[in-house]
């Protein structure tokens, strides 16, 4: 599996190496089911010893993901991508199943106990977003500073005049809610068109989306581009009228930032998590209720007033620049 986490780890490694440090990624495989396997793998991580290599101390350990961030080290700093969400904000969520196992509650309690007890042992606790910090505070009572980092190849994004489509780049996944966007599309007043790109990893959900696009006769208003290259993606951002990104409680979300870099307004939802830290309603995009009606109204509103959409896009880029999202600041904090 390769996703945002792998991109982030590789980006961090490259920046550390560029700053003159010797940096290497250690990836521990993790399989979260059946639930008792989670406990095994937490223990496995606790048993590893990364304090030295061949007699030379490892000066700093940067932990990113559960349960690997539990590996002990005297100079560990955690930059949390997210906790094991099934045991926290996604507990009893219809898309997850930890709670359906007889031992689900016990395993959840063990995860909570491990995080609450072991995370404070690190000498620094950071997260990738306010959203992740907020969850950590809510569920574990721990304070952590959010540290934003730029998307991959941030310097390569550019803008072009808007063409007649909204762009939704994301894995085709229930948590990204392409289904909600398709339901909304059926309710727009204007002939809004959407380009979707991103790999489909869940065949069931892909079929759901295909059915929705078919049912309402939306075929010629929807394009499925599948997995696209980074160059194609930047071109699609640049030529779009605006970007759709209404996931459910996203940890961080590069798409918001990429849209801002491409000077495009972003439509997101009130429950989308990470994107809400960046999108300002009616200044750099639209924050809609997570309903087909509200999303449809948001799409119509961008579609109908192109000049305003353009201005919001420019304001989004300005906001990105004002935020000083910079790898150097991340590294400085992680190595302080």
């Amino acid at each position, binding site marked *: 599996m390769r996703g945002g986490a792998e991109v982030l780890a590789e980006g961090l490694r490259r920046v550390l190496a560029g700053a003159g440090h010797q940096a290497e990624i250690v990836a521990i495989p993790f399989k979260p089911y059946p639930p008792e*396997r989670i406990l095994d793998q937490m223990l496995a991580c606790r048993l590893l010893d990364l304090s030295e290599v061949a007699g030379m101390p490892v000066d700093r350990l940067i932990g990113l993901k559960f349960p690997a961030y539990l590996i002990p080290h005297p100079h560990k700093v955690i930059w949390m991508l997210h906790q094991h969400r099934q045991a926290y904000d996604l507990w009893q969520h219809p898309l997850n199943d930890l709670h359906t196992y007889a031992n689900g509650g016990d395993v959840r309690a063990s995860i909570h106990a491990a995080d609450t007890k072991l995370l404070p042992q690190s000498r620094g606790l950071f997260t990738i977003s306010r959203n992740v910090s907020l969850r950590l505070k809510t569920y574990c009572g721990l304070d952590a500073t959010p540290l934003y980092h730029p998307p991959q190849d941030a310097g390569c994004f550019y803008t072009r005049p808007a063409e007649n489509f909204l762009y939704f780049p994301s894995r085709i996944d229930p948590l990204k809610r392409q289904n909600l966007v398709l339901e909304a599309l059926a309710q727009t007043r204007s002939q809004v068109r959407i380009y979707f790109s991103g790999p489909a*990893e869940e065949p069931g959900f892909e079929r759901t989306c295909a059915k929705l696009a078919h049912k309402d006769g939306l075929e010629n208003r929807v394009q499925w581009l599948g997995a696209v290259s980074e160059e194609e993606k930047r071109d699609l951002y640049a030529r779009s009228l605006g970007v759709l990104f209404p996931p459910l409680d996203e940890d961080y979300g590069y798409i918001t930032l990429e849209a801002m870099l491409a000077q495009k307004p972003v439509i997101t939802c009130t429950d989308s998590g990470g994107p809400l830290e960046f999108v300002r309603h009616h200044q750099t995009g639209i924050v809609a209720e997570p309903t087909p009606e509200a999303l449809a109204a948001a799409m119509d509103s961008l579609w109908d007033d192109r000049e305003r959409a353009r201005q919001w896009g420019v304001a989004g880029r300005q906001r990105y620049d004002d935020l000083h999202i910079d790898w150097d600041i991340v590294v400085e904090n992680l190595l302080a």
Partner: protein
Amino acid sequence: MRVLVVTSGVPFIRGGGEILADNLCRALSRAGHDAELISIPFKHYPPNRIPDHILACRLLDLTEACGVRIDRVIGLRFPAYLTPHPNKTIWLLHQHRTAYELWDHRTAGDLIHYPDGPVIRDTIRQADRELIPEAKAVYTVSKNVSDRLRRFCGIAGEPLYSPPAHAAQFHGGPADGYFFFPSRVSRMKRQLLVIEGLARCREKTRVRFAGEADHPGELAACVEAIRHLKMEGRVEWLGWISEEQKRELYANCLGVIFPPEDENYGYVTLEAMLSSKPVITCSDSGGPLEFVVDRQTGLVADPTPESLGQAMDALWVDRRSAAAMGEAGRARYEDLKISWEHAVEKLLC
């Protein structure tokens, strides 16, 4: 097929094991499989950390990823090869050597010096004996590694040779006046013995050494010996070199010197054969002895300065037979049919 290659590694350190793992993944992909490498960090000291790492590997679950079955696991290095999987093949690079043949080695032995060393040694041996046979098939990288596995654990493992990286790019060339010795600088590779051998030569033989030192101390010992034996004019110390430089140095040498102590396998031997060069190795060198045929593709000397010196003199004065041995080495490499296609086929069958 979805295949996971599972190995142990020490972060920041790359050697033959890492190269083999990378090349195996690439060969699997070329054969149309979905292959990925997992490297579990391993720190072998103090000794009581070893059982922790064994347990950690036993606790990992590589049966599936996101609900999709992993069809095969190929385990390479201790203790990662002990990670359970219903469809596991082990391709043993080597066991934890200081619990076995290097237990009481005068310089390499480490466990033996700790109070809990014997207990940890027995734990490692027991884990290997009981858990290696869980694998559907056990291969090793050489006869040498198979022999040790049979001798210490009573387990049969079939040797399966693999080509060195970029095997197709090695080529022969006219012999200049030097022997080539590419290797990490370490006691087990015995650069020091070669320097002493050089001092015993009757001819003005010359050696070019390439490779970085494991520890600054290893390098210092060689430099001191060169100075002490006044060999400065006959030794060239190249340090780290690129793969291209390495191939050129092979192509233009008179012969390759590779006299390590009990090497598991040894890509250097194969690279020399690919470059049509004779190899000087020693009677206790392990892996190289599976390839070097004495007086046909090289010379097998005793591990003494005198014997090594004689072997160097012999090739130095008879360039024609040195060249002939090199050609015979290349022919022998071809005869052995060493290929990644074959290795992948065996590992997945």
